[in-house]
């Protein structure tokens, strides 16, 4: 390939004179104020306090020294894990409620990671609860564990549904183990995961008919029910009311579909009151295009231009059946959007300067963010061939208007040039003050992983590295 060695095909540095730049921008985007980690820490602390509070009724209701037999001790451990599991289940659902406050303060990416970790803990807590209670009760009545299962299922109200809920939860948990998940079709996995709402429903009853701390009317029971109501309200708000309000307010429609490269398209959207759309460059929406073949699918795409009050644009690489259908969208097609979400924005920066690393179509959120970053940013754009470079005219213009240095690094991953450049030393040579910058990364997983490793080795603190990941 002729261009395989043109790894640094061009460097365009913003000039100090602003006369060369285009001044077509109607409203110069402002640099958003920094959003500190305060909100995230507050929410994390609240969730932890809730965890302690959920075990407190057991602590207060159990007389000290009462756990003299093994059966009593095991049963008590079963009750504690039960309370913890009940609480964690609510936290799990809350984190996926898409509540605007959570999306704003914590961000979908971080929530996804928390959801994963809490999910694993929840599964262990539920299984511990089940087995400890079974062993404890069986010991108490001198039964075998199997006989105890029979007693619980036969004599206890709501226990059958609780067992079903446990089964569903195990299924959901195991299907989310990374290796298994990759082997499953996305739709099947998604359906399985959706069934966890059933866990919420089926597991509800037994907590109140048998939970030693919950069956008595009183503040504990009332509080627990209130927690459930709160989470359901959050779900309704985040998944139904907020999107409904957003779409009724903005009524987005496709205005035009433009080819950016042979396999990339830009979809321009217009709507009402877009000047009041609160969106940051780098954020994404979940889009649902309301045509016959597409309405049932919702996909996350970044917006590839900062909010300008007149139109929105998303730039999409055609990789699958759904994205191929998007090429044929007719102007006027209604669009249902859910968002904006994401913490991959200029507002979440920790430093004054930024280094952006984009791979292929990963340029789209970075292109939008460039308009809002303080001047002096640096962009490294990795692409396999010059034809894969997207939006280059806009990037050149931004380089001048926003005083941004841009390096186009073209070539295959294994070529010596790009390999050298993307190493810790290569990066430090390009951007000597890298360790004092925020680094924003968006691109294919291989590039992201490799870059994070290089950045960490070069001494960039982990919290200064921002990743755009849509995957849960």
């Amino acid at each position, binding site marked *: 390939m002729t261009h395989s060695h043109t790894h640094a095909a061009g460097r365009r540095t913003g000039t100090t004179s602003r006369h060369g730049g285009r001044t077509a921008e109607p409203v110069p985007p402002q640099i958003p104020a920094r959003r500190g980690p305060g909100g995230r820490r507050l929410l994390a602390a609240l969730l932890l306090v809730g965890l302690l509070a959920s075990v407190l009724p057991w602590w207060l209701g159990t007389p*000290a*020294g009462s756990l003299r*037999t093994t059966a*009593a001790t095991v*049963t008590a451990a079963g009750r504690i894990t039960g309370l913890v599991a009940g609480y964690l289940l609510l936290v799990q659902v809350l984190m996926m409620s898409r509540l605007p406050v959570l999306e704003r303060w914590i961000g979908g990416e971080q929530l996804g990671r928390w959801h994963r970790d*809490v999910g694993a803990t929840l599964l262990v807590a539920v299984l511990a609860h089940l087995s400890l209670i079974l062993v404890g009760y069986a010991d108490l*009545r001198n039964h075998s564990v199997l006989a105890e299962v029979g007693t619980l299922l036969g004599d206890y109200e709501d226990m059958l549904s609780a067992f079903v809920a446990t089964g569903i939860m195990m299924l959901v948990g195991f299907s989310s183990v990374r290796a298994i998940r990759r082997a499953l079709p996305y739709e099947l996995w998604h359906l399985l995961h959706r069934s966890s709402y059933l866990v919420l429903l089926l597991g509800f009853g037994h907590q109140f008919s*048998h939970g*030693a701390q919950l069956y008595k009317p009183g503040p504990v029971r009332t509080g627990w029910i209130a927690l459930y109501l709160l989470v359901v309200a959050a779900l309704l708000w985040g998944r139904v009311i907020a999107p409904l309000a957003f779409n009724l307010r903005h009524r987005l429609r496709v205005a035009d579909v433009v080819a950016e490269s042979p396999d990339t398209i830009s979809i321009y959207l217009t709507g009402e009151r877009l000047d009041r759309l609160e969106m940051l460059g780098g954020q994404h929406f979940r889009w649902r295009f309301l045509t016959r073949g597409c309405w049932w699918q919702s996909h996350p795409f970044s917006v590839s231009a900062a909010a300008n009050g007149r139109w929105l644009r998303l730039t999409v690489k055609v990789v699958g059946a759904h994205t191929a259908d998007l090429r044929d969208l007719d102007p006027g097609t209604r669009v249902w959007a859910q968002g904006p979400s994401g913490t991959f924005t200029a507002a979440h920066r920790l430093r004054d300067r930024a280094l952006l690393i984009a791979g292929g179509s990963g340029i789209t959120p970075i292109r939008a963010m460039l308009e809002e970053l303080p001047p002096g940013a640096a962009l490294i754009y990795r692409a396999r061939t010059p034809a894969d470079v997207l939006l280059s005219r806009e990037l050149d213009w931004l380089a001048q208007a926003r005083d941004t240095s841009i390096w186009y690094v073209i070539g295959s991953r294994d070529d010596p040039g790009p390999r050298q450049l993307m190493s810790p030393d290569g990066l430090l040579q390009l951007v000597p003050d890298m360790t004092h910058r925020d680094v924003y990364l968006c691109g294919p997983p291989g590039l992201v992983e490799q870059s994070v490793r290089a950045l960490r080795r070069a001494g960039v603190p982990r919290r200064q590295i921002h990743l755009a990941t849509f995957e849960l």
Partner: protein
Amino acid sequence: MRRAFLAITGLAASTTALVVLKGSPGTSQVAQDLPAAQPVSPTPQGVDPSAAPDAGPAGTTPKSSVSAGAPSSPKPSRSTARPSGTRTTAKAPTAPRTTTKAPQPTTRRVTGPGVDNEYGYVQVQIVVSGNRIVEAVALSLPSGGESDIHSGDVRDRYNGTGGEVVQKQSANLNTVSGATETSNSYKQSLRGAIEQAF
């Protein structure tokens, strides 16, 4: 994934720690915690299901005397004090109740048959006014060790003027988790009492 591992380890460790802390009766810290903690939690439980006027004195007075008198073994205070409390004051609630329900003269007490099970002896008494059960009292429930806790659960759930017996007006009660035998014996005695009464 590393954080999930940490969280799971933390869950196991803290559950063990909680159980151990509660399980050791001798430690001074727990003994100090207990009197402060105890009035907080069980009293609201006592107030709600049982009759509001008599639950306060009946629930608190024997408890405080026992826990003050025997600090070395604070554990049985809650459960053993309760039955004696309800039993000794069993006559006390009748006085205010008959005065409040003065227009209805047909209030009677019916005691069910005693039922033995492997944990102890169960006997139930109901107070019937007209065609309604207005109160249920367990005259005897298994006691000692683990049974205290389960008997306490059974009593809290079924007994009183607002318990499940009064709500359901029958012996068709839900089994209390962890206390199947005692629940069944309770139901059996209650069934006998209902048959006698109606």
